[in-house]
């Protein structure tokens, strides 16, 4: 088992490096002045010189690649052209938000998806099942950004007070501004932002993006679970359990679910790219300050270093997600565990 883990980890590393190199190569393919991609003429002069040196922009391409690579390994991803901040810093601020959004969505996807799938399977061909099937087909065919916009439309009509964009509410923003102001003026203030208060605020802002991001994938998980459960239920060992007189609920919980839910974990890995792509769109629509929004922003602002760095990190998220799914599967499937 340990060897399985190690093997998988070792396999992931070259993949990450190759992705980074591939994206960097794309940058190199763009015709025109290379330094225009890295250097904004409005930047302070010493910054320009530093970037020139760090990334070897006046040198032949293989030197450029090598220096860039070394920098990336050390954590230096360049300077954002539009925001005049190190890219690493921007990503460092944005990444946790994206992880929060994706993580919460993943949870919702699997809990909701699996539950609906199991219910659908148990009540096969009933009205509930048919309705759920139709609904999941619809959701599965829906573009994420449209679902997001529809949600915003509906919610802003029905519950105007519910936040439908951003991650932080106005009240907390005001408090933050007040605290900053006090700091600048050197005064003390008794404005406090409670931890609980912050959590609730974030959770409120999370609800709509998570629903928008998770619903379509939850639908496909539900369908997959349904067919998996149906396949397991037909097996002879389930029939044996029933014939032995085991209560139906126990039959389902102990025999059916354990075997049916296992293959569903495999699609966790397959879903990662969709989740990440979806997150980009959802963050854009809801103004959620994560990697996706930075990515889209960098496009409109022609901020190439940030663009490529975001793309790179999103791919790393996919690779790590696949890795986690593989490890989880290896842990759950006794056949692999005892390899």
């Amino acid at each position: 088992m340990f060897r399985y883990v190690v093997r998988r980890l070792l396999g992931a590393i070259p993949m990450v490096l190759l992705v980074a190199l591939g994206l960097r190569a794309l940058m190199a393919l763009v015709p025109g002045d290379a330094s225009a991609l890295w250097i904004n003429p409005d930047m302070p002069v010493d910054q320009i010189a530093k970037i020139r040196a760090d990334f070897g922009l006046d040198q032949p391409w293989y030197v450029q690649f090598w220096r860039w690579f070394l920098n990336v390994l050390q954590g230096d991803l360049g300077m954002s052209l539009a925001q005049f901040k190190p890219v690493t810093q921007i990503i460092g601020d944005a990444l946790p938000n994206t992880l929060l959004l994706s993580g919460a969505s993943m949870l919702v996807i699997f809990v909701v998806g699996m539950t609906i799938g199991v219910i659908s399977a148990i009540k096969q061909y009933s009205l509930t099942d048919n309705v759920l099937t139709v609904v999941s087909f619809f959701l599965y065919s829906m573009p994420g950004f449209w679902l997001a916009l529809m949600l915003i439309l509906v919610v802003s009509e029905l519950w105007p007070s519910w936040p439908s964009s951003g991650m932080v509410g106005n009240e907390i923003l005001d408090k933050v501004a007040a605290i900053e102001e006090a700091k600048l003026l050197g005064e003390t203030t008794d404005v406090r932002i409670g931890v609980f208060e912050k959590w609730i605020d974030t959770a409120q802002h999370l609800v709509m993006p998570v629903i928008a991001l998770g619903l379509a994938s939850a639908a496909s998980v539900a369908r997959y679970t349904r067919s998996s459960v149906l396949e397991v239920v037909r097996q002879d060992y389930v029939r044996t359990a029933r014939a032995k007189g085991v209560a139906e609920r126990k039959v389902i919980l102990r025999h059916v679910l354990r075997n049916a839910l296992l293959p569903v974990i495999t699609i966790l890995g397959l879903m990662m790219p969709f989740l990440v792509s979806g997150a980009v769109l959802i963050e854009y629509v809801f103004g959620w300050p994560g990697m996706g929004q930075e990515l889209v922003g960098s496009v409109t602002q022609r901020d190439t270093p940030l663009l490529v760095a975001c793309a790179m990190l999103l791919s790393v998220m996919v690779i790590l997600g696949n890795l986690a799914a593989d490890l989880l599967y290896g842990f759950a499937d006794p056949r692999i565990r005892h390899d």
Partner: protein
Amino acid sequence: MPESRGVSRLPIVHQLVHGPRVIGVALLLAFLMPPIALVFGLVSGSLSRHIEAARGFGSWILDVWNVLAIKALVVSPAVAIWLGWPKAKRPREGKSQWTLVRERFVRSPMAHWGLLGVVFLYLLLFLAPFLAPYGYDYLRDPANLKLVGPLSDGYLLGSDQYSRDIYSRIIYGSRISLTIGFVAVGLSVSLGLLLGLLAGFFGGWVDFTLMRFVDYLLSIPRLVLLLVVMALFKDVVPAEFRVHLMVVILGITGWMGTCRIVRSEVLSLKERDFVQAGRALGYSSTRIMLRHVAPNCLAPVIVAATLGIGATILVEASLSFLGLGVPEPVPSWGKMVADGKEYITKAWWMTVFPGFTIVAAVLAFNLLGDGLRDALDPRSSGSKKIRIEEMDDEETSSQEAA
């Protein structure tokens, strides 16, 4: 030949009377296509107006279909007569696999809806100039741009901020989405089929490297890669060719799924005895690969292609939504939703209708693909039934008894 008297000896009428009703109706519609289109065009007033529609960058997709549509319209009555010509029922020549598939397909209602949906979409694509009351870029009153809601002022589904008709733009948008989807998927499926055959058939290091390459490409989310490419090359490529670039990149990023599917089919087929028989009979590897293995792989490829068109429509819509897709003034459903984003509370129709069309189109392809998948899945009980039915020949039963 069944007795046909009088009227039922006429081409299409014959089908209506004798054959499956659906075919008869379809042929009838095909025959009546020109007058139907004419009536539509006159009633909606589009015939006169579409001539005035403005042309813009990247609109070659829109114009090409006009030419093809005219040709198709002229030809369709002739085709209907030819197909509908009464023929003597041929001595049954052996039900191929495709006949079996068609029979299974007929049984699923959802697959039906999917097929109808897809056919309807392609009708929209062809007949856009006749069905759309205004051009996709038509400004009724350039001096007085205004935004109006559905069912008002001659706009069926409302207008956008440049007072272009949403309904017409949606219809023309079908040309964009479907053409891009079709071409991109054609590209990626061909690539995937070829590479999957090579990987599965030759195995060894060819297979190994190809699969590692596939894993690598799958690590980068498709939308992210497309974003990067379109953004990097946006200024380099003139606007006309943005669509070409998008189609090519969509094709290059979509072949991996098909490749895996084909490869696993080939691997399982390689062990089947009829492939071994081919080797024993001295057939070359190429021959076995192309004439024996490949045709048996086609079923999952067709399913993947159909579902792929749906997925491609979604990706294209997402790209256009972010502003990196088709250029102005070409109407893409995704771009229309993007235009409506700012006005979402004031003019909900700008986002709701185009978005809903995306859902409907993708849904149609998904249902069709799902139905095809069920129909192509060989269920042994189904085929056995047919075999026993064939065994009513005298020769067969007497030989078995001998």
